[in-house]
């Protein structure tokens, strides 16, 4: 897929672990891990909203379109 998820970059900037983020966003660790590793096929707006709130960032900081 051409959409790249840069969640780990943002988590490193905010010094937040996957466990902490999953508790704040109320998503299971497995789902968050799928998102981080690029296995997820889709993301709900509500989830994106919760992640951006937790990491204090914009969607463009997490999602990137790569032509490769």
């Amino acid at each position, binding site marked *: 897929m051409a959409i790249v998820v840069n969640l780990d970059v943002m988590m490193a900037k905010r010094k937040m672990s996957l466990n902490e983020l999953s508790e704040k966003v109320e998503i299971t660790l497995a789902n*968050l891990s*799928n998102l981080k590793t690029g296995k997820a096929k*889709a*993301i709900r707006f509500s*989830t994106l909203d919760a992640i951006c709130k937790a990491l204090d960032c914009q969607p463009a900081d997490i999602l990137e379109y790569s032509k490769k």
Partner: protein
Amino acid sequence: MEIKITITTKQILAVLQVISWILFLGLAVEAGGVICSVAYIMLTENGANNSWLGPELGRLYQADAGYFLAVTSYVCITSTFKALLFYLIVKILYEQKINMEQPFNRSLGNLISNMSYLSLGIGLFASGGVRYVKWLTKNGAALSDVAYSYLDGAHVWLFMGVILLVIGQIFKRGIEIQEEHELTV
């Protein structure tokens, strides 16, 4: 006084499992009996007169072994396919791969596809067998309803095969949608 009877899916599946086992055992015995009878007729001297398949097929063997083999091949293949079909159903029910929370899984999808191919196979071979028996009867062979009884209902099997093929394609799409839903965060 009102009596409400609620039947759960589990109970229905349990009943279906029992019925499938009974049908599978019956069809397996029939298929085995047909194959053993064919071997008995061909390998023993008096086999043609005393076989389970009836005296007509025994007389056909004595008249021409080739015609006999052709008719019995059709009968053996359709009987074996029928037993295989119910074996697949028994296997999926026994392994409890029917999960009502996530019904669209690959094993069920494969089951439906395999069932459609087997049904089509039964229909095609039964139809071919009936035509062959009719041709033999036209050309003087005295075959009673014995052969027809193993080969009848070809159109029903073909219909079921086509319906299952369509359902299989819809099921495959359901599996794709479910897998996408599982990977939606």
